[in-house]
């Protein structure tokens, strides 16, 4: 859009704060009856704290004051004083508003869902709410998803050697560093069974590609765990590594279980495969299946091919692995 269409207006303000000159469509910004020679701070609310400039120009986007009209404000130093240029920012405001509102609501929703579905943080939300939030039938819907399994290696042994409080505290520390990246990538934490968790990507509405999101979450999980380990080492506490398996394909989504314990979950080959791959992964390693590899647009270069023998399958299976540093 050209400047002219953006209702330009200007002010020139002396270094001592008094208005020297002004012009343009000031009324569009609710600025009226300006008096020259009078301090600008008392006349234009939002300029009060900004002037005088030090030397560097200043830019503030989408500022709304009395009138309610959103303005981009450019302030730059000149010979006579500071120049203030106002431009209508409504187009930008609407664009940002649409994007931001959607993505913020989505984040809040994700947070809510994680509270409902994640027994680790669950605090008694109702199943009704759950069904309102997710749009599929109880009878089950088939959908292409990516499934991620993550396991804290060596933790079972640790839990047998230590008192429950210590175990729980340590587990909580690891789980909370692991859950956030999953939620951030729009992953649905399906269950946390002791020291292993499963997440589904491709169920919550997002714009991203879900195999990419699963891999990005996995990398972040391992990095977060590395960071946590650094801190724990400083405190002379034992550290753990995690191993991750990811598989993609069609699964059946739905609410399963009997009346007493009903839970949302996914059932299918991909779930089983992801669990198998996770078992094959070494600490600090991500192993993905061929489907995920083919579908990931951005991360193929991270992985190298390998063949694995999985339980119950006679011939070796093609997989891809990545070591996260």
């Amino acid at each position, binding site marked *: 859009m050209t400047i002219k269409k953006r209702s330009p207006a200007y002010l020139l303000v002396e270094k001592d704060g008094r208005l020297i000159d002004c012009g343009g469509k000031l009324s569009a910004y609710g600025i009226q009856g300006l008096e020259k020679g009078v301090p600008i*701070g008392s006349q234009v*609310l*939002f300029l*009060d*704290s*900004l002037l005088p400039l030090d030397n560097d120009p*200043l*830019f*503030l*986007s*989408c*500022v*709304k*004051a009395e009138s309610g009209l*959103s303005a981009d404000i450019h302030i730059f130093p000149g010979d006579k004083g500071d120049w203030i240029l106002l431009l209508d*920012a409504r187009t930008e*405001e609407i664009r*940002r*508003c649409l*994007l*931001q*509102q959607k*993505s*913020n*609501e989505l*984040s*809040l929703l994700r*947070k809510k869902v994680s*509270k409902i579905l994640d027994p680790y*943080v669950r*605090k008694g939300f109702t199943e009704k709410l759950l069904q309102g939030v997710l749009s599929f039938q109880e009878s089950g819907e088939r959908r292409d998803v990516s499934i991620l399994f993550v396991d804290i290696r060596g933790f079972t042994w640790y839990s047998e050697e230590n008192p429950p409080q210590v175990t729980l505290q340590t587990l909580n520390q690891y789980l909370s560093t692991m859950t*956030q990246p999953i939620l951030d990538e729009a992953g649905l934490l399906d269950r946390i069974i002791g020291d292993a968790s499963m997440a589904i990507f491709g169920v919550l509405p997002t714009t991203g590609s879900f195999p990419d999101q699963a891999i990005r979450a996995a990398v972040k999980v391992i990095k977060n765990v590395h960071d946590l380990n650094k801190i724990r080492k400083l405190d002379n506490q034992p550290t753990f590594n995690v191993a991750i398996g990811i598989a993609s394909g069609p699964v059946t989504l739905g609410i399963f279980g009997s009346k007493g314990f009903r839970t949302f979950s996914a059932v299918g080959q991909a779930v089983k495969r992801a669990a198998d791959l996770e078992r094959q992964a070494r600490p600090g390693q991500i192993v993905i299946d061929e489907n995920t590899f083919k579908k990931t647009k951005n991360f193929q270069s991270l992985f190298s091919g390998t063949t694995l023998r999985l339980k119950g399958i006679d011939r070796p299976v093609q997989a891809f692995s990545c070591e996260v540093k």
Partner: protein
Amino acid sequence: MIKKKICMLGAFAVGKTSLVKRFVKGIFSDKYLSSVGVKIDKKKVIIEQQEVDLLLWDIHGEDEFQKVQRSYLRGSSGYFLVVDGARRATLNTAFTLQKRTEETIGKVPFVLIFNKWDLKDEWEIDDKTMDDLSKDGLMVVKTSAKSGQGVEEAFLTLTREILEA
């Protein structure tokens, strides 16, 4: 007339706009309308017989894609760091913003607000964390923009600190 600029800072949807609305207009709405850019409101308060005009800069929430511009902070006499007690991650955002603000405008008074006190059953931040923070010397206030609890106190506390600074 004394004028003081105060910025509302925090993650998205913690209740910055709601706190300003409650304080300035005495109203609250459950509907979430995310702020774009910054909106400036004015409110007169009287502290020890002294009239102060507060210029409240209600800034959009900080997130990965939309960082708070440093230029908004210019000339602030103080600021609020607003946290949603039911979302622990918003406390980290508050600390990030605190750091950035101090780098930009130096040390000025601020108050840490734990908002949504009316939802305390769902809170992910416990009393101990809050106590520890106030023991560390931070000014901490619990508020509910919905019920109004603590809101006036928060604004008056910060104004008082600013006048004493």
